[in-house]
């Protein structure tokens, strides 16, 4: 297997007696979608926060392209090439769709932001931004205010902003949340295309999408990874069926 782009080693995080992450290790190799699934309360959000840098683990290390980024904060990890999307759309709601995308391109440029030049007239930035909007199918909405978009369009914009970062790793926290079957079906081919540009660590509740997209799946239960493998292996895994998929079947 190729050298992993993202490698998480033995991460543990406790809140009092609760072990939110219990010795979690996983990695992400070039060209793959690695899905992280688990029932509610399994510790997915906590794990994502530790990978993104908004939460420091008690133990363990996070490596990005061979570099130890455990001590870096969110900003530094974004600059190191981590492009994340949020579970709850996290956008500048009063700004236009294009402005949100330009903000991403501006951050990714890693140069002084500019104090006097008109940012929306900067062709380099607006081209990157428009390209990203085209890819997610939002180019016609470029001038709309984000607050006026539908929920699904905001989810698409989340992905578009991550695209403008031209990241080395995508960290996607439930990009299909609240999208419904039709919305998910639109996003699936996009993610399929994206993984060749940068591997995707995908946290997702939509099992259809996960089994369609993922090259590998890790199952998180009570803060521990109980299994990692191909979709077929995960389907066949007795422990997983009992802990997770079984529940779904029963429900």
């Amino acid at each position, binding site marked *: 297997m190729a050298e992993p782009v993202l490698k998480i080693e033995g991460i543990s995080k406790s809140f009092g007696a609760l072990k939110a992450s219990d010795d979690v290790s996983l990695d992400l190799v070039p060209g793959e979608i690695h899905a992280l699934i688990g029932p509610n309360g399994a510790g997915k959000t906590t794990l994502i926060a530790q990978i993104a840098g908004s939460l420091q683990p008690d133990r363990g290390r996070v490596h990005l392209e061979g570099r130890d980024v455990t001590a870096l904060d969110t900003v530094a990890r974004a600059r190191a090439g981590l492009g994340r999307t949020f579970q709850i759309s996290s956008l500048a709601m009063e*700004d236009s769709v294009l402005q949100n995308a330009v903000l991403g391109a501006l951050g990714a440029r890693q140069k002084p932001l500019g104090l006097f030049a008109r940012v929306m007239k900067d062709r380099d930035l607006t081209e990157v931004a428009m390209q990203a909007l085209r890819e997610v199918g939002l180019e016609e909405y470029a001038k709309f205010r984000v607050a006026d978009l539908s929920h699904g369009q905001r989810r698409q914009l989340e992905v578009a902003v991550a695209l403008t970062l031209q990241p080395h790793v995508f960290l996607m926290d439930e990009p299909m949340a609240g999208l419904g079957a039709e919305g998910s079906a639109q996003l699936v081919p996009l993610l399929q295309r994206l993984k060749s540009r940068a591997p995707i660590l995908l946290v997702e509740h939509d099992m259809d999408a996960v089994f369609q997209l993922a090259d590998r799946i890790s199952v998180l239960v009570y803060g521990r990874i109980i299994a990692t493998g191909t979709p077929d292996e995960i389907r066949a895994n007795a422990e997983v069926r009992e802990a997770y998929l079984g529940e779904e079947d029963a429900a």
Partner: protein
Amino acid sequence: MISREGLINTALVFGLLLVPLWAHFSDEPYIVTLSTRVAILALAGVGLNLALGLGGLVSLGHAMFFGIGGYAAGILASHAQSYTPLFEWPVVIEGTQFMPVIWLVAIVASALVALLTGALSLRTSGVYFIMITLAFGQMFYYFTISWPAYGGEDGLSIYVRDRFPGLNTLVPIQFFGLCFAALMLALVVVARIARSGFGLALNAARQNEARVRAVGIEPYRLRLAAFVISGAITGLAGALYADLNRFVSPAMFSWQTSGEIMVFVILGGVARLFGPVAGAALFIILEEVLGGMSDYWHIWLGLLLLIVVLFARGGLIGLIAGQARRDSAGEGGGHG
């Protein structure tokens, strides 16, 4: 096509220019002085608006910068008047009544204090930020009261208004011209900043901090820079205000001053470029009209402020321009 807000802004500029010109030719120096006050207080508000409107930083300490600018003018002038140097060691620094130097000192001193106080206070947010900026302002207030070297409680007088090359600043309309020019310059600077990359990121950080972090930009540094520029503009206003009154006192540092600057911004319209201009003008008109009728005119001001906050969030400009949208960083938005 010019938007409605653009028309209002143009009207404000011409109004602020034509009223004192008319007053000058009608021999009404008091109205020229009132207009000068509007220009200076609007300038102070333009400074605050950058932090408050674009950055979302509710600073209740901007009197600090207003006062620093005022005392920069007062202290330099008092030394020039008494022919005593400020320092003799390690180099001799003389006082001055030369406005460009005074303004430079006011701007640099305010910016430095904004950098120091901002570096600390911006580590907090929300109500704690309001309280810590208030506390910094009050520290300066009590310090100047108890500092006998420069008049303490009694303040400092500037016996002859400071000079500006080529102008006779003692003529009210000429001094007004200076203040008006400073205001216009500040408006241009803030307008450019609002549409810059820095402005886009600052405005986005106000709306969603996590988003800005996720694209690799640190909100703290944006806010600190905004706070410094904001403080410097308000500091310049303070220096002009000292020359307008030819007097500075600790009252410039009081939290009521911070409150009044914020009232200008809110009355006129938070985050509207010309909000502070409209707000300061309305404030002075109310003070003149209502103040002439009753000593308790602040009650009516309070009522008006209440109405604006409850029913017209965009302030006076938002009310007339008729859209509740903030004048944010770009030309792309707003098909609401």
